[in-house]
């Protein structure tokens, strides 16, 4: 509850900051302090110190899973602000408002991660989406940004409609919006429940961009100003996944056998399409957009398995994926153009940045000793524990090997190809932060329990 209220308050504070504070660094520092405060109060809440004792009337449930994910989301946002906030200046004039919108999105993230009633899920998804439509279109004079924004908006509104119909049908069958008390029978499930569940499944698949509902993703991620793509592809996407898992864990866990196959097929398609299309991309930004689809495929494995391991796995995956992607985007933002060629000879110019970039890419590809490996490992383990999906696991690892192809292309460009690249200037603070992120990835890759123990103690 702490984080929810404070993030809403900070959203408003940032809007006023836009009026009263003219210096951009000050605005930025207020925002960074705000996220740091959010992270702090959330950790306090995990240790049992709750400032706002609000009775949520069964609408929300702040369990360890939700709180831990909130911490991960706030931590990633903090890192994102420190690394990339200066780059938001280039997007448009309304600097403080961007931060305000991001704080509102964080508010939605908290709702989605800790909902118990479907009403809160719906509100959370909308509170995330509406500011994102604005951020996507924030580069107002740029046609591509306009287009991405409109496309995102239409797709988002459409999938919300589908989700609402799902919720309604479910309500018609069960008489409640509370996911804990739906009591869906294993035998003789009514048609309304099945239809409602499928609609919810599809709309959530839209939000996490699972194939075949992914077609908006590459265009929107590509058109969106890069600095916001970074946020959208990481924190927002992980939040949608956490909501997805929570919904299906609580409401539809009892009829797992009925939807397992659908989930398996969608997972397989997502892995296949995401990875194979990513291979053919010429721009790093677009490659990362497809890579976000393929990583979603791995996270879907956690949904498919639906056991304790998959809950741990999704937290670890969200962390590993968010940190690595935010890091790569931060470096990408400093480049003049986003093609693979622009990274040629990067290692000679910026050995340190190239080095940490390699760690990010290795983590995304799932090489041991990085958090990305253990994240994938948890997902595979969860799937194998749930039984009879050996074929999917084998497909997943083969696709992981395909993903090496496009991640390592960047490494090849940086290290083994000669070229001037583009000369970039970065501050020592930026470098230090990236090194810290890379160190986090490696530490989590060796001792994942530093993070996962928070789920239990």
């Amino acid at each position, binding site marked *: 509850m702490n984080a929810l209220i404070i993030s809403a308050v900070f959203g408003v504070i940032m809007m006023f900051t836009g009026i009263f504070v003219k210096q951009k660094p000050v605005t930025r520092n207020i925002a960074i302090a705000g996220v740091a405060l959010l992270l702090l109060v959330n950790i306090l809440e995990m240790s049992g110190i709750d400032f706002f004792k609000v009775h949520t009337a069964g609408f929300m449930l702040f369990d360890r899973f939700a709180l831990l994910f909130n911490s991960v989301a706030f931590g990633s946002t903090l890192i994102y602000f420190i690394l990339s906030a200066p780059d938001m200046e280039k997007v448009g004039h309304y600097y403080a408002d961007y931060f305000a919108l991001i704080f509102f999105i964080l508010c939605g993230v908290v709702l989605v991660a800790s909902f118990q009633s479907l009403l809160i899920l719906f509100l959370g998804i909308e509170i995330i989406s509406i500011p994102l439509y604005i951020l996507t279109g924030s580069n107002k004079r740029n046609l591509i940004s306009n287009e991405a924004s409109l496309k995102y908006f239409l797709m988002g509104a459409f999938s919300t409609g589908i989700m609402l119909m799902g919720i309604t049908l479910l309500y018609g069958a069960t008489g409640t919006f509370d996911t804990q008390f739906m009591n869906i029978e294993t035998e003789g499930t009514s048609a309304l429940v099945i239809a409602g569940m499928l609609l919810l499944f599809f709309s959530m698949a839209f939000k996490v961009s699972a194939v075949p509902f992914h077609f908006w993703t590459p265009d929107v991620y590509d058109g969106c100003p890069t600095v916001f793509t970074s946020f959208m592809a990481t924190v927002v996407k992980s939040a949608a996944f956490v909501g997805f898992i929570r919904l299906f864990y609580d409401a539809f866990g009892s009829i797992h056998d009925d939807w397992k196959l659908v989930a398996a097929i969608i997972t397989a398609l997502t892995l296949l399409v995401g990875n194979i299309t990513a291979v053919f991309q010429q721009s790093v930004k677009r490659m990362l957009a497809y890579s976000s689809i393929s990583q979603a495929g791995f996270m879907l494995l956690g949904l498919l398995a639906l056991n304790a391991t998959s809950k741990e796995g999704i937290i670890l995956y969200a962390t590993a994926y968010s940190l690595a992607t935010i890091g790569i985007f931060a470096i990408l933002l400093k480049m003049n153009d986003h093609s693979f060629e622009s990274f040629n000879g990067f290692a000679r110019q910026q050995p340190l940045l190239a080095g940490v970039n390699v760690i990010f890419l290795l983590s995304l590809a799932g*090489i*041991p000793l990085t958090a990305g*490996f253990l994240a994938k490992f948890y997902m595979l383990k969860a799937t*194998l524990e749930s039984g009879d999906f050996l074929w999917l696991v084998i497909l997943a690892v*083969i696709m992981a*090997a395909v993903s090496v192809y496009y991640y390592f292309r960047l490494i090849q460009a940086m290290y*083994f*190809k000669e070229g001037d690249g583009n000369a970039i200037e970065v501050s020592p603070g930026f470098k230090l932060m990236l090194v810290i992120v890379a160190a986090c990835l490696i530490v989590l890759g060796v*001792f994942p329990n530093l993070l996962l123990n928070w789920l239990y103690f």
Partner: protein
Amino acid sequence: MVPVLLILIPLLAGIASFFTGSEKTARFWALLASLFTLLVSILGLTILKDPSYLAFETSWLGSLGSSFSVKLDGMGQILCLLTAISYPIILLATWHTPHKKANNFFGLMLLTQAGLMGVFLAMDALLFYFFWELALIPVYFLCSQWGGERRIAVTFKFFIYTFIGSLLMLVGIIYLYTQTPGNSFAIADFYNINLPTSEQSNIFWLLFIAFAIKMPVFPFHTWQPDTYEQTNYATTMVLSGIMVKMGVFGIIRWLLPVLPAASYAWGDTVSTMAIIGMIYASLIAIRQNDLKRLVAYSSIAHIGLMCVAIFAETESGMQGVMIQMFNHGINIIALWIVVEIIERQFGTRKISELGGLAKKMPVLSILLMIVALANIALPLTNSFIGEFLMFNGIFGSTITKYNVVFMVCAGITIILAAIYTLNMIRRVFYGETNEITANAVDIRENEKWILIAVVALIFIIGVYPQAILNISSETVNEILKEADITPYLIGK
């Protein structure tokens, strides 16, 4: 303590090496570290033999049932010794080869060594997988950055190949893990798994493909000649001398004892694949004009024989594999040293462009002659005893019906090996000199002494193989006991 040191010394030295300055410092630093590792390895064989020194275990990833558990058993001793001996040899032999960004080069080399040591020492499946990859990543950078013109594409192929293999192995490992009683990755628990044969078969292939790609066995070998050809010599020596042993080692430690029924069921198939590969590789080697590719194909043939001997599952065959793993490593490194000397002097590796070197380079020709004879397993050389034991094992195998066929086919490849090796020597070292070879000078001091040391090793092991056989005999018996298939046969 000893196994931890064996991993930590190269690991830390490797990381430190990235921060050293000049090429010379980096070189000395790497040599120092590798000599120190060798010292520890020898101490582990001689003075610190007490089991408490040779094993180490501490908790790590407790919730997953994995622990940091390393142990030096007989097979581990042999392979760690091979790794430890090879590194100083490689570093000294390439002492005069210039490397751009030498600190990175030697750093990555040492990291590879740490990964290799870890693979040979790990007693926990997840740890094994970690080190397996840790050995691969630095090699990717080594091969991509230092080597021939096509190195980037070729290395990428190699990397993707091995990465697919290792991921499949990961699936197999996790599957086995879910079958252990208390969900554990410890090797002892893996040995106790009793799966039905059909399930074992699926897992068998998941694991075997990873090992087969690494060795490489016949249909999975296509990455190897290209990679050896394009890579710089020091890395090639590591790849062919030590890294291919990872595959052999993996089969012996993680495949046979864990999945005995499937190993029995598929043993003949695997042996057939290996035999096909041996004959095929030998035939290609005969027609090869490029020295590097010739050695590469000859390596495929040798490894194939080891594969057949392993699946014969006899004590003598297994002992032969143990000693041959060591010998093959030493011999092939010596061959690479010679090829490097030739390429550095004449700027070509084409056999057809060389000739008459014996007159100009007498020392090199004598040393090469001995190494080459060891490569075709002449008596008194180290390989003789290894191959003899392996043939003996294959012939005496009770586990396959086709042992005579396998032995005859493998015997043919020995003859083929003699043909291509002696032919190569004849064309390169004898005959007339031409304008390329006319101004040849004999080898440098460091190369001479290194080759002499290797030749000495070849003879010592050839005359007194018992030294190595004693180390490994206990492990061999243990593994054969675990791999025993009688319980499964009674079940039928």
